[in-house]
């Protein structure tokens, strides 16, 4: 499977800022899709992915409606995460399609993480089409509270 590294090789916080571009791309896909469903555009589908940095962990949230658990692959290293997901839309027996905007897709994306995480403790859950990946930071990467002591 193709693993596409994003050309904006961004640290974790710019992932959220990259969103408008993906949104625009999606809109363009839709515009062109209304004229004709071009397969080349289907290939460029990118689900909405966001990161939240809590003190203890990086939390990735990816919108993957209609994707089965078995069709999601996640690879985590200490400083990167790769997500692969795909869905194949079934044709409905006995129905004719009046409108088709939803797409089958194969998605693969790697994200460079802004903090070192412990791959052994990563947790993933899929709920109502949303993948939540909790990537606990290693102790050294967690913020330290420094107590100020009054000089004697």
């Amino acid at each position: 499977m193709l693993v596409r590294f994003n050309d904006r090789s961004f640290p974790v916080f710019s992932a959220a800022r990259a969103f408008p571009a993906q949104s625009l791309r999606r809109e363009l896909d839709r515009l062109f899709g209304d004229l004709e469903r071009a397969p080349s555009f289907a290939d460029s589908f990118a689900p909405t992915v966001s990161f939240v940095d809590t003190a203890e962990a990086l939390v990735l949230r990816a919108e993957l409606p209609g994707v089965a658990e078995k069709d999601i692959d996640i690879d985590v290293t200490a400083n990167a995460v790769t997500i692969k997901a795909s869905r194949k839309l079934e044709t409905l027996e006995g129905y004719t399609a009046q409108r088709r905007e939803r797409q089958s897709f194969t998605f693969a994306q790697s994200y460079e993480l802004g903090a070192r995480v412990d791959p052994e403790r990563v947790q993933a859950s899929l709920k109502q089409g949303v993948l939540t990946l909790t990537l606990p930071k290693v102790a050294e990467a967690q913020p330290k509270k420094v107590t100020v002591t009054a000089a004697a």
Partner: protein
Amino acid sequence: MDQQTQEKNRPLRKLSPNVDVFENEHELLVVADVPGLDPNEIGVHVELPELRIEAKVQGSPDTPVSYVRTFRLDERIDAERVQADYKDGVLRVHLTKSAAFRPRRVAVQAS
């Protein structure tokens, strides 16, 4: 955080979900990608000739999201018989056609 601050920092994202519409002789089936919702927060409103699907996601760690999509239906739909289900972030709305508009086989009797 007070409401005003929240609105400034996190404007409500309004999305128009991608939708498929299928038809057979009994119904129209609307299928929409609307991930991450509480089923109780999904509004499916049929006010002929309009079908409106809307949902708000509040309290998510991300920017709040609102989905809205409106369709014009024709008179064939029975507004009393609309069913919706939500699974894996995909909403399916079954809109049953009125009996009068469903095909009925008429037997020809030999005279």
